[in-house]
């Protein structure tokens, strides 16, 4: 058995010995280094571009929008983002020119000798600015996209409500901060333009380059190199870098390497969408929700890019893991003059999760009831219906995760103990002469739809295949990328399990568009559940072909494949490897491809935005225990306990690593991470001042994996990558609320923000 075992990570050895080559570790003969010249204003137009005459430009390759053979757009959802600005500037750090030189010193020197003059226009820099429409920067109302979903009769629901509770929640930008900065190498050639580098989605780049250069499928080859983390940040943006490198390479007719340094990477690439989310909830005195109205606004930045898809996930997850018969959710994404926001692990869900969980805390506080009890009253269970009208028919681990997390963290006893110790403290929260550390414990409960939203997977029809190599071992052909999350390892386990082989016998082909089919992007927690399923189906087809072959060859119709051998009852006829080789020798090749088909039970209506938004959901619950230093307002997360239902852990150790990693990023989201802006420019674009958790900031974590098998996932597996990033921020905020009495409706809970909230509580108390 390979599935469920903690086998050696396929990419572990290379990474631990320094042998793994990432894009910046490779130097090619005759290679030039590229650099992007970017705007230094947030909004306006280019008046002039001047090149110092005294500088020797003969050694510099320069490219601008006029060098693009095709249309000047980066292919994504809408053709609105130019690859290089032509005249109008819509955000700070927008690419204008590209330069390349044989060495980096020359490149930096050249950059200093280019002078761009602008006419500055008044920029739109916040959600409030955009909605106020004083300046129109997109369409007629600055709105990129709207959704309205709902069911029941909200007015009727509110009429039945005994209490109506309102809350407004704010969530910030968050930088992916993959440790490997973005980078790409473009190699021009007679037959094809080759792009290799750090990426999540080779076929996105393939499509973008084809369009920009008017090339056909075979004329573009995209190869993923070992990639140092993505978290969504290498979903869409690498297409821009690849195209920039390709443009320079095309012009220079030499390979060009374009690597961002950290400051440029943070300044220019997409972030998690900030948002403002308003809840208005009607409840009965016993806690039952009878009406819910939610309004969410996401800041998309300067161009559409992936914003509509992020907003779509946001609106569908906005009510969270709760049932309510009367729901109306309005969602808008607006335009600002800031770099486009894009994909980041969670993709719209962590924003709304903070809001719906804090709203639960608020409702509980106002009703004077326990928030765990409130959640139990309203939670979705198997057979219940979601806001989009989806009835949950399978793999609903909601009760299990909540019970597990609460029990393992000893939540109720701790909650009681902390609340008793607080009521015994007579002094006010701002008395610094006495008690100085406060403890609190908080809970969050959440879900995450796995795979693409709505009919995305049905349209995508992800492909993957398996071929038998000359040595009789299988090789997986898939465009899904390894970015540290374990793609290569779990695919080898799935195939090994299906073909009853040792996992080490399975090879994974590099993601190279000339060799692997389009499995869809490596995003949306879909690699294991969706592509893993397709790989499994391809493996089954290989198995079927070989069984048929062996049955005929040995005239043994009842042959089976067990432990790497073809068996009839207890008699071994031949090895897998031997028969696979024989098959290949006889027929030339053995390659089987499969494509994804949605489960027949799933129905989605794109027009009304209703139905089965996702084939299945993963479920999580998290308990955070915190200590707050009342002198410095610093929050220490003492312990995190999380239970997550992921269907089946193909590799429990890697799955736990995904949960811990996502949870730690969420600790950063909740406590530390914030961008500081000055007129549209990010001024904390360094690892010294964009604050992510260090090992000392990482709390002890206990992870409990719950396995409610999903019948259409490989061996029951569903998504795991994104689920964990939803839980920590609201759980920590709930714990801080218990510890201090300050209700934080905005993250991150920096000491400065907590101080202000505590001072407000104290002022209110004294009033």
């Amino acid at each position, binding site marked *: 058995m390979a599935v469920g075992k*903690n086998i*050696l*990570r396929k*990419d*572990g*050895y*290379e*990474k*631990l*010995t*320094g*042998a*793994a*080559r*990432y894009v*910046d*570790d*490779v*130097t*090619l*003969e005759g290679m030039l280094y590229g650099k992007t010249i970017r705007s230094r204003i947030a909004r306006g137009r280019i008046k002039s571009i001047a090149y110092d005459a005294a500088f020797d430009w003969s050694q510099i390759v320069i490219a601008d929008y006029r060098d693009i053979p095709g249309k000047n757009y980066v292919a994504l959802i809408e053709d609105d983002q130019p690859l290089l600005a032509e005249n109008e500037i819509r955000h700070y750090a927008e690419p204008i020119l590209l330069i390349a030189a*044989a*060495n980096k010193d020359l490149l930096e020197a050249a950059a200093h000798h280019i002078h761009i003059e602008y006419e500055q226009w008044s920029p739109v820099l916040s959600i409030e600015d955009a909605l106020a429409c004083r300046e129109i920067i997109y369409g007629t109302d600055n709105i990129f996209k709207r959704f309205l979903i709902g069911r029941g009769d909200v007015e009727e629901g509110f009429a039945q409500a005994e209490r109506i509770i309102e809350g407004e929640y704010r969530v910030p930008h968050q930088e*992916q*901060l*993959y*440790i*490997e*900065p973005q980078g790409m190498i473009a*190699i021009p050639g007679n037959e094809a333009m080759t792009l290799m580098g750090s990426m999540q989605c080779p076929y996105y780049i393939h499509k973008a380059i084809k369009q920009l250069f008017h090339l056909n499928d075979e004329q573009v080859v995209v190869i993923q*190199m*070992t990639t*140092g*983390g993505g978290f969504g940040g290498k979903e869409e943006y690498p297409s821009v870098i690849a195209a920039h490198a390709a443009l320079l390479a095309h012009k220079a007719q030499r*390979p060009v390497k374009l690597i961002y340094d*950290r400051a440029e990477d943070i300044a220019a690439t997409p972030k998690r969408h900030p948002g403002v989310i308003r809840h208005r909830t009607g409840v009965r005195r016993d806690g039952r929700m009878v009406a819910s109205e939610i309004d969410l606004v996401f800041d998309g930045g300067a161009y559409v890019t992936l914003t509509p898809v992020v907003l779509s996930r946001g609106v569908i997850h906005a009510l969270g893991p709760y049932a309510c018969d009367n729901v109306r959710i309005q969602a808008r994404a607006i335009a600002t003059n800031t770099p486009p926001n894009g994909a980041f692990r969670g993709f719209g869900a962590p924003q709304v999760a903070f809001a719906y969980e804090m709203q639960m805390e608020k409702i509980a506080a106002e009703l004077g009831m326990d928030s765990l009890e409130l959640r139990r009253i309203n939670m979705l269970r198997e057979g219940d219906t979601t806001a989009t009208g989806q009835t949950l028919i399978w793999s609903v681990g909601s009760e299990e995760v909540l019970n597990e997390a609460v029990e393992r963290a000893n939540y109720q006893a701790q909650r009681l103990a902390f609340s008793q110790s607080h009521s015994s403290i007579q002094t006010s929260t701002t008395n610094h002469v006495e008690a100085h550390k406060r403890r609190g414990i908080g809970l969050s409960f959440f879900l995450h739809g796995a795979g693409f939203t709505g009919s995305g997977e049905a349209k995508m029809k992800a492909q993957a295949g398996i071929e038998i190599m000359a040595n009789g071992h299988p090789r997986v052909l898939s465009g899904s990328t390894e*970015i*540290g*999350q*374990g793609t290569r390892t779990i695919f080898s386990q799935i195939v090994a399990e299906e073909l009853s082989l040792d996992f080490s016998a399975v090879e994974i082909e*590099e993601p190279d568009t000339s060799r692997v089919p389009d499995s869809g992007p490596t995003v949306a927690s879909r690699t294991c559940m969706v592509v893993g399923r397709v790989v499994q189906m391809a493996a089954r087809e290989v198995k079927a072909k070989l069984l048929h072959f062996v049955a005929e060859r040995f005239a043994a119709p009842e042959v089976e494949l067990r432990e790497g051998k073809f068996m009839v009852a207890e008699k071994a006829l031949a090895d897998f490897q031997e028969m696979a080789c024989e098959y290949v020798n006889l027929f030339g090749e053995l390659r089987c491809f499969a494509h994804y088909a949605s489960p027949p039970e799933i129905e989605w209506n794109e027009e009304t935005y209703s139905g089965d938004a996702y084939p299945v959901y993963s479920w999580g619950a998290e308990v955070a225990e915190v200590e707050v230093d009342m002198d410095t307002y610093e929050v220490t997360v003492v312990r995190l306990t999380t239970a997550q239902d992921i269907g089946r852990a193909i590799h429990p*150790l*890697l799955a*736990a*690593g995904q949960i*811990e*990693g*996502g*949870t*730690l*990023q969420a600790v950063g989201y909740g406590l530390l991470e914030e961008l500081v802006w000055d007129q549209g420019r990010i001024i904390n674009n*360094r*690892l*010294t001042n964009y604050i*992510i958790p*260090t*090992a*000392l900031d*990482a709390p002890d*974590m206990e992870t409990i994996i719950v396995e409610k098998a999903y019948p259409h996932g490989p061996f029951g597996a569903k998504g795991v990558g994104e689920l964990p990033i939803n839980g920590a921020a609201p759980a920590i905020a709930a714990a801080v609320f218990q510890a201090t009495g300050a209700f934080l409706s905005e993250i991150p809970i920096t000491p400065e923000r907590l101080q202000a909230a505590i001072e407000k509580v104290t002022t209110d108390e004294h009033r």
Partner: protein
Amino acid sequence: MSDEKNKSDQQKSGVSRRSFLKASGISLGVPLVVGHRVINVNGQEVKLYGPTKTSITLTINGAKQTVEVEPRVTLLEALRHELDITGAKRVCDRATCGACTMIVGGKAVYSCTVLAIEAQGKPITTVESLMQGEKLHPLQQAFVDNDGQQCGYCTPGFVMACKAFLDKNPSPTPEEVQKGLGGNLCRCGTYMGVRAAVLQAATMHKGGKNHG
């Protein structure tokens, strides 16, 4: 190096089969190479490096290697660009992230803030040296066992920081381990795995077992 070895190295590098990937050093286009000069300033003789390239000798993973670098070049750049030793990574260039960590003269340092000329005469140890023949070093093995790496970009530096830590603290407590590893940022969130790996490697060491 035999062709066989060469081939297997290429396959490990993840860029196999592409003939155009023959790695080569970068030519900075500064042809003149001199050693350091001794200049006389106010009656004192002082070694002067640069501004042109200087020939220096570094002792890297037990082997002496001579490189020609401008004196402002960092140890990290010298190894990555001149010697194609690319395990240590350039990530922040700000002495913050630890991806460039090497052990120089027995101490963990950020090689992005050490001048290459300054590292002359001291043993320089990088992640490339840890393998013992075909076997992983016990610390590397402990990283494997505890999944102390995901994307791998912080890993070579993190492993070296852990090695230096264990060299100084062979039997650390879990709290010492947590406090001792603040100099390496990991965004995948492998800190739990790394802590467990360090504790495992320490236990193996304490038990006196020779794991390779």
